[in-house]
């Protein structure tokens, strides 16, 4: 079981789907950000396990490495925006920011 790609794909897509649903249902921006991190992590897992399948080079792992870097950068900017929002509105609810609409 632990030696087939299918089990890793299943695991990875389960984490991805959990992350996606978390993003969809939670109202706390911080948790939504963490859900996105979950999704990115599942992609990393998928890439590394596929690299285990395509062993010719290390592209999959390199890709995952870059995604880690991207995720870190994204979190930095995202948390900055959350902080700004918090300073201005005093809350971190994403569904409360509805000045811009229609």
């Amino acid at each position, binding site marked *: 079981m632990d030696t087939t*790609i299918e089990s890793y*794909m299943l695991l990875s897509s389960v984490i*991805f789907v959990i*992350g*996606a649903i978390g*993003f969809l249902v939670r109202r706390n*921006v911080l948790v*939504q*950000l963490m859900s*996105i991190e979950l*999704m*990115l992590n*599942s*992609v990393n897992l*998928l*890439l590394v396990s*596929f690299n285990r*399948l*395509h062993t*010719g080079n290390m*592209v*999959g792992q*390199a*890709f995952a490495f*870059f*995604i880690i*870097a*991207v995720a870190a*950068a*994204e979190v930095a*900017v*995202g948390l*900055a*925006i*959350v902080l*700004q*929002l918090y*300073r*201005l*509105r005093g809350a971190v609810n*994403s569904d409360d*920011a509805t*000045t*811009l*609409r*229609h």
Partner: protein
Amino acid sequence: MINLFLGLSPILALGLGGMLLMLAEAFGSPAGAEGRTHTGEVVDAGAGRGTELGLIAAVILFAGAVFSASLWLVGPESLPEVSKVAPYLIIDRFTVFFAFSLCFGGGLVALLAAAYLPEHKIDRGEFFPLLIFSTLGAIALAAAGDLLSLFVALETMSLGVYAMIGLRRTNPRSAEAALKYFLLGSFAAAFMLFAGALLYGVTGHTDLAGIGAAIGELKGAALDERAGMILVATMLMLVGLAFKISAVPFHMWAPDAYEGAPTPTTGYMAGIVKSAGFAVLLRVLFVAFGDTRIMSWGSGWPPVLAALAVITMFAANAMAGRQESVKRMLAYSSIAHAGYALVGVVAASRGAEAMGAVLFYLFGYAVSTIGAFGALLWAGRRGLEAVSYEDLAGLGRRHPAVALALSFFFVSLAGVPPTVGFFGKFTVFQAAIDVELYGLAVVGLINSVIGAYYYLKALVYMYMREPRTGAPIAQPMESGLVIAALAIAAVVVLGAGLCPDQLLSVVSQAKLN
């Protein structure tokens, strides 16, 4: 080696220029350190040098455009060394065309921002390095021939834009816009990443050409096993790409983000980010998903995009007609324009000639829309901005030059000859008719008629209405930089409209083979 540098010159120019700009910002004279302007108002630390930094940024970006133009003249195919950076960056005429148009549009935005930010007391030096590096990301995105560089470039561009939206720190709208774009953008990027991982899993490649070739070779049992993965990858990739170009129903972020952002950033998003989004969409769909079984007229992505184009045009135009805010109307109109361009993309899936039409459309649209946002920000000064249609009432009489600029770019967006907007629509619909996509062409035509309504509405307010007594009216700001940017944009819009042949021959060379 020198050939390689020449091939990468637009990217290198922006990278080095961005570094220099940051140095200038860090070690330049702290003009606003005291935190007071000449009017005695207290402002942010580090403020006051926006105009100079903006001018430097504009020079750097226009230099990038000049490098791109010279690279076009030299011909990237005559520089064999550029294949060293392939497939991560593919320096072909497609890339060079986009590099030019992105740098050019970025330069216009820099000029606008250099006037806008000091006027609105958000005189922040950080804007311009962000602008330059974000544009660098956009160029790299257009050049990316590999999923790795594609995602890094995409994030570089997007993170810069998120920050440029949220730059107005004291404003809840700005924060809200940045938040919405950031959350949904990251969500969509995660989809694209998952799709990329699946494609890697199916093919063992991360470069687009390799993926395309490997999918083309799939047959029989191997295909049966992996078809599901390819379909999921196609679906997620399409969603991610459609999000970036803000096609309905993946557009919901766009009006809010456009409205809340500082106006130069809005112009940047509408012009540059969307162009780069289309560049990557074209490259991914035609290179990685170019197999006849996915790029089929009966199934695969072309019918999906055709449906998206139709929904996009109708929904965006219907919504745009109901807006009270001109800025938000322009946001919806930019969504509608994505629909028109998608018509060309669908046509290109049947005949390669149509891709030239898409490129033509994108270039004309980018310059027109940046001009339109520029004219809109010209029309208002601090506290007296032009926001709603009411604000524009009687502008034609009070400030004819401003009204002329606004109407000129609106007319181009509406697609009236002899502007480039007309020829953009003309070539796209012509391309659709050439490949017998009559329905799409007709829908596009109907929508450009509907679209003309809300542009005309602005013209009617400017020239035929008087402001209600006591109603606040927009007071144009005075800035040579804005006038310069608008003049450059107007020359391009009118020039490309008067002699479209040169541009048409350029785009026909620039299309992906």
